[in-house]
């Protein structure tokens, strides 16, 4: 044994790193590479969150200053006062995520398997709306959904309006400034975030697998359910996360396309911070939102069985 130990290290000095198999070079190199970015994230992401939590437990006001009093009462007050907005944010985000998934899946599927040589062109068309500012496009929805517009006319003809009213998404006849308009905007704005990961996971799928599936299961729907869907799960998980998280915190859509009874939690936080200047309440709401989302995401990722997050 000891004789081998001598051979093993041989003529080199101690602790010579193994000649690389691609993974190991200098022992300190990875830390040097990681340090600046990690430091940036630590200082401008983690530290602010700590400040936020601390702020939520302080009392005082903007004029006299704040003092850390461990006042957990702020949380209770803030949550009870804005419970409706919290619930509404998560419900809207959930509906928008499901809607985006239902729209994006056929889209990604068609681009991956049916587009042929137009594949790249169609992909560009999915990404292209990105380049016109998000706000300008959301304002365009105000034009599209206005009461005497063509779109609303078509919706009336197809009885979509009455269906939406039955679903409680349209309190009145007006389409714009309604829950429906807010959800339409949310779905629209985050659709590319759903489509691209779905496309990426579908595109990697070997078409021969589908042929084999067609061979074994014969019915196209069965082979979709047994092969395509399970193999595209990583894309579904990534897409739903990339849609749900920003949608839950968003307030641009509810501000531009909604009314006072569609207020989402992001709007409340923004108002408390920038207009009411009630920092402890605003911070408590922020912390609650973040904690809720982190818990939801953790449960979801754990249930979906995705290991490596990034």
């Amino acid at each position, binding site marked *: 044994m000891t004789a081998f130990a001598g051979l093993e290290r041989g003529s080199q000095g101690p602790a010579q790193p193994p000649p690389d198999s691609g993974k190991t070079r200098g022992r300190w190199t990875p830390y040097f590479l990681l340090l600046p970015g990690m430091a940036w994230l630590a200082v401008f992401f983690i530290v602010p969150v700590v400040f936020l939590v601390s702020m939520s437990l302080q009392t005082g006001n903007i004029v006299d200053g704040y003092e850390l009093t461990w006042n957990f009462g702020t949380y209770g007050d803030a949550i009870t006062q804005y419970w409706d907005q919290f619930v509404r944010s998560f419900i809207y985000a959930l509906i928008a995520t499901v809607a985006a998934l239902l729209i994006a899946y056929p889209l990604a599927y068609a681009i991956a398997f049916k587009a042929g040589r137009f594949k790249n062109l169609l992909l560009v068309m999915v990404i292209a709306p990105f380049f016109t*500012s998000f706000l300008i496009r959301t304002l365009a929805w105000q034009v599209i959904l206005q009461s005497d517009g063509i779109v609303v006319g078509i919706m009336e003809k197809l009885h979509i309006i009455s269906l939406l009213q039955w679903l409680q998404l349209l309190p009145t006849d007006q389409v714009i400034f309604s829950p429906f308009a807010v959800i339409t905007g949310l779905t629209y704005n985050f659709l590319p975030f759903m489509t691209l990961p779905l496309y990426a996971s579908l595109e990697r799928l070997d078409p021969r697998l589908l042929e084999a599936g067609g061979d074994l299961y014969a019915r196209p729907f069965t082979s979709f359910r047994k092969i395509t869907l399970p193999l595209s799960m990583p894309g579904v998980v990534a897409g739903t996360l990339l849609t749900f998280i920003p949608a839950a915190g968003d307030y641009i859509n509810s501000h531009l396309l909604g009314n006072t009874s569609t207020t989402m939690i992001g709007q409340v936080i923004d108002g408390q911070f*920038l207009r009411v200047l009630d920092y402890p309440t605003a*911070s408590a709401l922020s912390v609650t939102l973040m904690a809720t989302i982190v818990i939801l995401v953790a449960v979801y990722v754990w249930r979906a069985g995705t290991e490596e997050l990034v």
Partner: protein
Amino acid sequence: MALTAPADPADLVSTAQPGPPPVHRRSRNPITWVREHIVGIFAFLAFVYLLLPNAVVVLFSFNNPTGRFNYQWASFSTHAWTNVCEPAGLCSSLVLSLQVGVLATVGATVLGTMMAFAMSRHRFRGRAPTNLLIFLPMATPEVVMGSSLLTLFVNIGIPLGFWTILIAHIMFCLSFVVVTVKARMASLDPRLEQAAADLYANETQAFWRITFPLVAPGIAAAALLAFSLSFDDFIITNFNASPSSITFPMYVWGSATRGTPVQINVVGTLMFLIAILAVGISQFVSWRRSRRA
């Protein structure tokens, strides 16, 4: 209705499956046609949904509205196109957004690429916390990031403005850069670097001659993503800007209440066209290159 209902399915069946077997595979029957092209129809509708607002933006950039708001079509005009900088503050906000966008892209791309290299080409302790720290900003809503940064800046007394916006933008672009570059690194065959080492290239040479050129498209994609995220960001910016540092999205937001100048549609259209043109040119160049050989 209720009385006739039972008869309907039978009718459907008998029309869908006529006695003699169909000769043509491509049936004229509309139901069959819809069933065969269902995915394509859905995809088409999805594209309409995706591109309708862009069409409206382009169309209304030629509008000559009667009031302060550009919501109703009035008459055709190219006034906005020839007088882009007419509304006060529009062009200066555009310049600020471009400045922040470029600097944030450079910062986030350099830092993020370094992190991606470390994570996919090196072994080190603390991989799990590193992954978590990179993932968390992507799992945090923008209001939370914006408001927490504001709390930090207010607490330690950093004046809001250009630099606070830049800091915030680098922070939220970083994770997206890491993920994009890492994905590209993962698809890179490690044997190429080994082949370089076998052919007398030391680590530095192998990096610059093999690894870097091959990962470059991924880095470019990450930079493009970072730029578009930065250029388009409103929520985080709004928390960390001052009245004297108005970015383009902030300008648009403000105009939504004060009155929307047609010129913002011109800017939106131009951005769309530039992007399409850039993609078109790069596609054409790569097509030409593949043809030439």
